[in-house]
């Protein structure tokens, strides 16, 4: 069964079907979407049963897509190639879960439902497609396809400053995609199919790009050349994905987009779209340009550490709850860069773990912000006090989400961060990529994380009750909100207490990453 294609194209096809339904049947669209989400969950459950922990890439589907003879220029070849491994499988699972929750949280969208849910479905397919595609051109198509629905979802269904936010988001990300495009073309010109005999077959296959022996001698990104071009390509590709991550100083689209986006879109943005950045670095940047990774390792780790501290400081200064959460995302994604820079097995496994964990926890955080915003239409921290006495169950989830996010052991966030620290601390003695002082400085981020969350709890939830905003009723959680928060809380707890159930999937990838692709690259380029 072509699981991955079904996962990717069921939402896309449903989106086309949804377009045929007249807009006046407003109830049909959320039900249709949730039907797709449920189907995806079932499909993913079946994938888990069929997943072989010992194998690497699997559930592969390969079809020829573009094959064009260019006479003297060789042959252009792009494939429809999708597969999952220890990196993408957890992220696909995360996407399926988050999209379900995003649909649930969009249940009360009133403005132009047809357009909203259609765009959500297209986004769904594009995100999963990006995580599965192993052909660079295919990935790029999916990657670009995410932008458009996102642009409209923020720009039409967003808050007061939605136009500014959506255009900023779009332009930032587009800049990143242009960088990616440039490098993609360079790679296409430099990589050939290994089995090609007479004519040169240029390929977009990432697996071939990861093998330096497939580089065409004398081409622009040939590794034998003392490679300033390769370093440039690394830098461009890295920045392309770092914008998506986002890393300081390419991050300012994130707070605006988050603050203006509706709750469901904030969830998708934080939980999934940011992960494309980390995923891209792990899938494309590092394995294809290991020499650049070694050369720039200080920079990558440095940007990570700066993001951790800088994001946390900004979160501390935020007056808006959503902005605070957005900056905390910047801080947490800094750990991803730190772990990647270490290029150790523990660090890489920690990065994948951190991405999954941040997906779960940040979704919770934005749901929490949304719960409050739905009731009062105000997100300013200073306008609230003593909410714990009025919204008891809500406060329980707030505490779970905040403490999970600040890295309390027992929640998934701790495992990811501690594994990244394991990797970063041993990097200096193991492969000398990350100097020891960097992770030591990064630990300050944990302290700052505790500071901004606890300060928020103290100001908003403890103390005597008062709310300075207009609201009809300040009810505790509804059953729909329960249904969204509870699975996420359970997942955060489960992955925090029993890390091995997720690490069993991730470990093979982390080992292949460090032992094969990465060391292969280092050895080939002394």
């Amino acid at each position, binding site marked *: 069964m072509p699981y991955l294609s079904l996962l990717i194209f069921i939402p896309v096809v449903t989106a086309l079907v949804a377009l045929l339904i007249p807009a006046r049947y407003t109830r049909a669209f959320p039900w249709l979407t949730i039907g797709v989400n449920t189907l995806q969950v079932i499909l993913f459950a079946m994938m888990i049963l069929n997943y072989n922990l010992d194998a690497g890439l699997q559930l592969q589907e390969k079809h020829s897509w573009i094959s064009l003879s260019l006479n003297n220029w060789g042959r252009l070849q792009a494939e429809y190639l999708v597969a999952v491994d220890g990196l993408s499988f957890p992220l696909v699972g995360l996407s399926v879960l988050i999209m379900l929750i995003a649909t649930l949280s969009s249940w009360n969208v009133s403005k132009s439902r047809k357009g909203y849910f259609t765009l959500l479905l297209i986004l769904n397919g594009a995100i999963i497609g990006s995580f599965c595609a192993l052909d660079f051109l295919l990935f790029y198509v999916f990657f670009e396809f995410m932008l458009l629905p996102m642009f409209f979802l923020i720009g039409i269904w967003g808050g007061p400053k939605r136009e500014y936010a959506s255009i900023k988001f779009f332009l930032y990300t587009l800049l990143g995609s242009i960088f990616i495009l440039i490098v993609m073309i360079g790679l296409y010109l430099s990589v050939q199919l290994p089995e090609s005999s007479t004519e040169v077959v240029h390929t977009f296959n990432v697996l071939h790009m990861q093998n330096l022996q497939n580089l065409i001698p004398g081409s622009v990104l040939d590794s034998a050349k003392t490679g300033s071009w390769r370093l440039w390509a690394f830098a461009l590709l890295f920045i392309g994905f770092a914008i998506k991550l986002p890393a300081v100083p390419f991050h*300012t689209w994130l707070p605006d987009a988050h603050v203006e986006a509706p709750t469901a879109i904030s969830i998708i943005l934080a939980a999934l779209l940011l992960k494309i950045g980390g995923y891209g670095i792990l899938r494309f940047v590092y394995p294809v340009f290991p020499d650049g990774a070694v050369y720039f390792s200080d920079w990558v780790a440095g940007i990570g550490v700066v993001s951790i501290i800088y994001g946390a400081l*900004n979160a501390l*200064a935020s007056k808006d709850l959503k902005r605070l959460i957005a900056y905390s995302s910047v801080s947490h994604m800094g750990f991803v860069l730190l772990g990647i820079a270490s290029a150790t097995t523990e660090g890489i496994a920690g990065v994948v773990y951190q991405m999954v964990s941040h997906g779960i926890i940040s979704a919770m955080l934005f749901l929490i912000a949304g719960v409050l915003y739905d009731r009062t239409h105000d997100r300013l921290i200073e306008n609230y006090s003593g909410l714990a006495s009025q919204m008891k169950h809500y406060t329980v989830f707030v505490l779970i989400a905040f403490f999970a996010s600040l890295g309390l052991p027992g929640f998934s966030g701790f495992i990811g961060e*501690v594994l990244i620290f394991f990797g970063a601390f041993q990097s200096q003695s193991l492969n000398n990529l990350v100097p020891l002082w960097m992770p030591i400085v990064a630990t300050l981020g944990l302290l700052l994380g*505790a500071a901004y969350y606890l300060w928020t709890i103290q100001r908003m*939830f*403890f103390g*005597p009750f008062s709310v300075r905003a207009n609201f009809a009723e300040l009810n505790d959680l509804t059953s729909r909100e329960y249904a969204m928060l509870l699975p996420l809380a359970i997942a955060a707890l489960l992955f925090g207490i029993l*890390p091995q159930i997720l690490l069993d999937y991730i470990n093979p990838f982390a080992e292949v990453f460090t032992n094969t692709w990465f060391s292969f690259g280092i050895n080939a380029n002394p």
Partner: protein
Amino acid sequence: MSNSTTILLITLLIPVVSAGIAFSVKEKYGWFIPIICSLLILSAAIAILFPLFSDPQLTEQFSKTWLSIDNTKISVGILSTSITRLMAAVVLFVSAMVHIFSIGYMADEKNTDRYFGFLGVFTFAMLGLVYSTNLLITFCFWELLGFCSYRLIAHAQQKTIAAQAATKAFLITKTGDIGFLIGLLILWVQSGTLEFTYVSTTSDAWTTTAGVFIFLGVVGKSAQFPLFNWLPDAMQGPTPVSALIHAATMVAAGIFVLVQLVPVFTPDTLWVMTWVGITSALMGAVGAWLVTDIKKILAYSTISQLGFMILALGLGEVSGAFTHLLHHAFFKAGLFLAAGSIIHVMHQATHQANVDVQDIRNLGSLRKQMPITFIGFAICAAALAGIPGTTGYLSKELVLTAVHNKNLWWLELVVWTIAFATPLYIFRLLWFAFLKPATHELKVNEAPWIMRIPVVLLAAGSITFLFRSGHLSSFATQLLQTEIEIPTNIMIMSLLVTGVSLLTACLSRNLSPRSSEFLIQNFLDVFNLSIVRLTVFTGSLTSSFDKKWIDRSIHTLAYGKVALAHLTGWADRNIVDGSVHGVAWLARGFGGITRSVVNGKIQSYLLWAMAGLLIFIIWMLN
């Protein structure tokens, strides 16, 4: 897994069950929570006696892999040695006493579900830390302890001051925890494992660094200089919680981890520990003398006593320090619970009047009104002061002997000073609360029996008994089979110092204490506040940097692009279009001329044709 380890595992799980019940029982049946939770913890405390008394020498380890990547393996399990079993027994016993006491103390309070729930988690976290086989797991439970204390200190969450105290406690201990994390990571890089049984290091600079960082965690958790000012503030929590924090869980965790790790520490690390211990012991004693709040006096006394233990550990006197930790757990829990009784009954007597019942100057002559609490308090106070016949005396002598053997005169001086200062402040507390004629005319009743029993039991555990061999011993020295041989000169000196101290206390008993914490608390608060302010200020700086520089440069870029677009737009309109228009205009001009020519009249065509023909003929003729 052997029987005794199974029992330990059960004792670990019982508090979880207790917490689970507390969190899940409906509010309607809230009365049921305190009783069932207390019974559960009490049963665990009894259950652990079986492995405790069965075979003191037994050392077992049961562990399973919890996390494994490549060569990194972290295991969870149960380490069963005489030390862990005894510690766990004390934790469970004190926790059970606190639970039982809370039945009375929290009888009129709301939110007992949350209270007993987190007491359960707190106990579980401490037991997990005690049983842990791996330093990373220790760290996990260590953090969990911090979270539970945060939640319990902020139990009265509507009170802003309680919430602030909780935040402060969490952040200051977290500062230490960061050090712990760094330390254990360095240790891991150096030795490749974090299992207690395998961790071994050479004494190089890295090990010293790791040790000092880990010790920083202890400094935070055990409220040592300079990270101790969260502890007096933490008195905002309910008093039984303070008893638990001070006796068996939070602060004890720091000392316990040191007891396990001291063997891998280098001499330099130990030296740092000694100094921090000395400073804290002295500052704590001074602080206890300066404050008037009954709970704060006990809090500072804890800082002082823990400093004393750390000083002993720094000198390598592990068994003395550990014994003192266990003894301290009993008498400090007793003191706190007795203080809780006082506060409880005084609150009832004053009917919420605007009297600070925690200020010892407002208390007095409670001896007659609360005789049993008085006896319990007095025994525990004697143990704290180190008066012969109590457990505190024994462990103090152990440490004093160790110090004496170091042959450092100034160190001995310091230790004797602490020995002198301790009876001074605790006797004054006893005097003000129980003996001194009261300033008020309140009718105070003795605390209910459910609150008296724990105090009495804890006091009973603080008395030494004569063992067969004729040696004085306590429960702890008996079970640990500690050799207690106190040199006669130390014994005499110790008695002398304690006697003089008590005499001084007696003579100066009416000296009204100053209500000033300025020297210690305020100084550190200012210090902390300035760090907090600095951090928040940096945050606002980076935030404005974000807006002013990063965003502005992007806006500038965007505006530049738009300006460029306008420019090209203008060029498009005026130059490109202009030239096109120009061409078009020209064409139109010509077109106009030709159009005027092509006007559709046959005659004019004929005329033009004629003219053309004429011109052609003329040209041909030339």
